[in-house]
């Protein structure tokens, strides 16, 4: 049972409000127990006893009407609260798009409008046929029943479990409001125009106003079943406030059904006062809901701002790291360039003076000396080519790449054309698929394929003409489309374990006497492919050819 009334912490009303409402509901009753009286001393039946001949002063008139005034003021306060509820409820809807609040707000407003009609009829501001002693209790009971029924209906609409979608939400609100308003008007109209209203007050019985038993039961039903279910299904502070409002509503009916003996007596006034409380509580609930919505939004905003700031800081950091990396990379390449450039200078001297020495020594006929010098000379020649290659390699990495649409068929045609001499010498065959157009730097792509084809021609098997197949297909890797270009030869190949190593600078798998070169070619290839955002790899087997695989983004 308690679980039935359990409200999530974020949807609870502040405890001082709950306690305050409970105290307000009980306090008048306790006051009465100790002899307190909230009633109006003068009631309507006293008026005829005054001599008609002695004209009443204005003050007297007001004294006589004090009960009616009190009644009107209390009712009108309740009605005003209902107006604020419906206004706030529509504001709430415009912010949250939650249709429950306006529909219930409208229900409450219709109940309030009913109270207003009841008051206007009682004060005779609109003409009514029946006597006030009958009209007031009857329309009161009517409006209370209507109040209870319309609230149960309004709230009950949202218990069906069927979710009304937002698009139809507004339409739904309008239709519901019209239905409620029409029902309210018809009931009041009936009461005001009917001269024969049934007896509603029985001062001598225990249940002094039996008509108020119906709203009592209805409000008990709402407070114990409907409102808790609603608060469970559509949890909000407003729903909680609605649930709490059942308490004064029930208290109102208790005072009326079991307390009030006549118009404007103590129980009558207490009941009317408590009704204001019953209307104000949902209003408080809506206001608190606002505050909560606003606070949540501020919190979200702050969290968002924090996340945004964190993200910005990270992006900044990344940018800085990137700049640093680019800088250090550029510095490294510059260093390689300058170092190798400056190394050339002393090397040139070694070679030149070596030449001079060689000439002089050859005259004195010392074979060993001549051999030593020849070795020095060949080493310095080799060092020169290493430095030259290092320079080339560093240029490949430091040059600016402007990637333009480049037809690889044209590139390969140029490469094959320039290799024609060695192709003829080795009787090589080159087969080529139709190749794509990729975003690239044509000079660098030329160098790439020149190096790869030169390799294929160079590392051929003894007595076997090189065959090079260039294949192309489109593949997808990590959801990115690539052109996969394979350059396959039938040469000496190598063990797969060296597949990574051969792309490193100056890495060679064979003796210099066997195959010429410094070992820079494939390192340059790798660099060029990487500068095109591509991937290069190789698959090979000893004595079984090698297949270089290039991936370029399609």
């Amino acid at each position, binding site marked *: 049972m308690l679980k039935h009334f359990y409200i999530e912490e974020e949807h609870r009303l502040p405890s001082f409000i709950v306690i305050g409402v409970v105290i307000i509901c009980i306090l008048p009753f306790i006051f009465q127990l100790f002899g307190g009286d909230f009633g109006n001393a003068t009631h309507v039946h006293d008026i005829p006893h005054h001599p008609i001949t002695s004209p009443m002063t204005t003050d007297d008139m007001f004294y006589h009407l004090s009960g009616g005034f009190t009644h009107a003021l209390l009712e009108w306060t309740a009605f005003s609260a209902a107006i604020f509820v419906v206004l706030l409820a529509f504001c709430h809807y415009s912010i949250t798009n939650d249709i429950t609040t306006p529909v219930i707000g409208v229900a409450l407003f219709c109940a309030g409008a009913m109270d207003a009609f009841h008051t206007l009829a009682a004060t005779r501001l609109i003409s009514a046929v029946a006597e006030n002693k009958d009209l007031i209790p009857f329309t009161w009971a009517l409006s209370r029943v209507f109040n209870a029924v319309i609230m149960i209906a309004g709230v009950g609409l949202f218990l069906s479990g069927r979710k009304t979608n937002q698009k139809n939400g507004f339409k739904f609100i309008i239709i519901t409001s019209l239905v409620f308003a029409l029902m309210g008007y018809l009931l009041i109209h009936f009461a005001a125009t009917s001269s024969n209203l049934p007896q509603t007050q029985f001062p001598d019985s225990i249940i002094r106003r039996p008509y108020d038993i119906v709203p009592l039961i209805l409000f008990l039903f709402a407070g114990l079943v409907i409102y808790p279910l609603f608060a469970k299904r559509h949890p909000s502070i407003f729903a909680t406030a609605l649930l709490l409002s059942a308490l004064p509503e029930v208290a109102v009916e208790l005072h009326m059904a079991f307390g009030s003996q006549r118009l404007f007596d103590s129980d009558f006034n207490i009941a009317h006062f408590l009704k204001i409380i019953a209307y104000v509580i949902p209003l408080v609930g809506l206001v608190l809901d606002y505050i909560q919505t606003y606070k949540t939004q501020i919190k979200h905003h702050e969290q968002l701002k924090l996340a945004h700031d964190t993200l910005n800081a990270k992006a900044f950091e990344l940018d800085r790291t990137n700049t640093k990396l680019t800088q250090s990379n550029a510095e490294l390449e510059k260093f390689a360039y300058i170092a190798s450039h400056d190394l050339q200078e002393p090397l040139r001297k070694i*070679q*030149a*003076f070596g*030449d*001079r020495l060689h000439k002089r020594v050859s005259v004195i006929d010392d074979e060993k000396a001549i051999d030593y010098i020849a070795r020095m000379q060949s080493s310095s020649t080799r060092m020169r080519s290493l430095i030259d290659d290092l320079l080339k390699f560093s240029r490949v990495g430091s040059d600016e790449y402007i990637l333009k649409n480049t037809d690889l068929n044209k590139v390969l045609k140029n490469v094959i054309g320039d290799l024609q001499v060695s192709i003829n010498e080795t009787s090589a065959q080159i087969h080529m698929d139709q190749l794509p157009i990729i975003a690239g730097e044509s000079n660098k792509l030329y160098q790439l394929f020149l190096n790869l084809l030169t390799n294929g021609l160079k590392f051929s098997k003894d007595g076997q003409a090189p065959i090079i197949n260039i294949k192309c297909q489109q593949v997808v890797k990590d959801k990115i489309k690539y052109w996969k270009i394979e350059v396959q030869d039938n040469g000496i190949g190598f063990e797969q374990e060296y597949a990574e190593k051969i792309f490193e600078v100056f890495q060679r798998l064979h003796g210099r006497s066997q195959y010429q070169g410094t070992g820079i070619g494939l390192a340059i290839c790798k660099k060029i492919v990487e500068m095109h955002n591509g991937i290069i790899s190789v698959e090979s087997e000893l004595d079984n050819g090698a297949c270089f695989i290039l991936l370029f983004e399609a």
Partner: protein
Amino acid sequence: MSEGLTQIRIHMCDDDPDDQLLVSDALEEARLRNPIDFTNNGKELLQYLNREGKFSHLVDQPLPGLILLDLNMPVMDGREVLSKIKQHKEFRSIPIIVLTTSKAEADIARTYDMGVNSFIMKPVSFDRLVEMISSVTDYWFNLVSLPRVK
């Protein structure tokens, strides 16, 4: 090779003593008897041409018929002195050959723009250097007609 031409003087402006030695060796190897003298930077070269300072004693000597000029030197580099010489009314007709290790495109373009007569990379081997000296002297001293230098 006529006797009179051996008198034409070559001048080399280069801060590297090794290169100075190699060039004089190459002249010898090529059996050329042209006298050669050296300065170490652009400022010295200007003093030499103007016969100023430590070169004032050379006031009666004729100006060189060919200048070999390095680009990268301290105090005043080859580019600066080249532009000064090529703006000089008297010196501008002396053929200047830039002989350098630089192969930067920018240097080639710029020095020709300033009026250099040839741009040659320092040869790697001594034999090539000898060949170069032979052909350059043959071209400028035998083949080409130049205005008379005071």
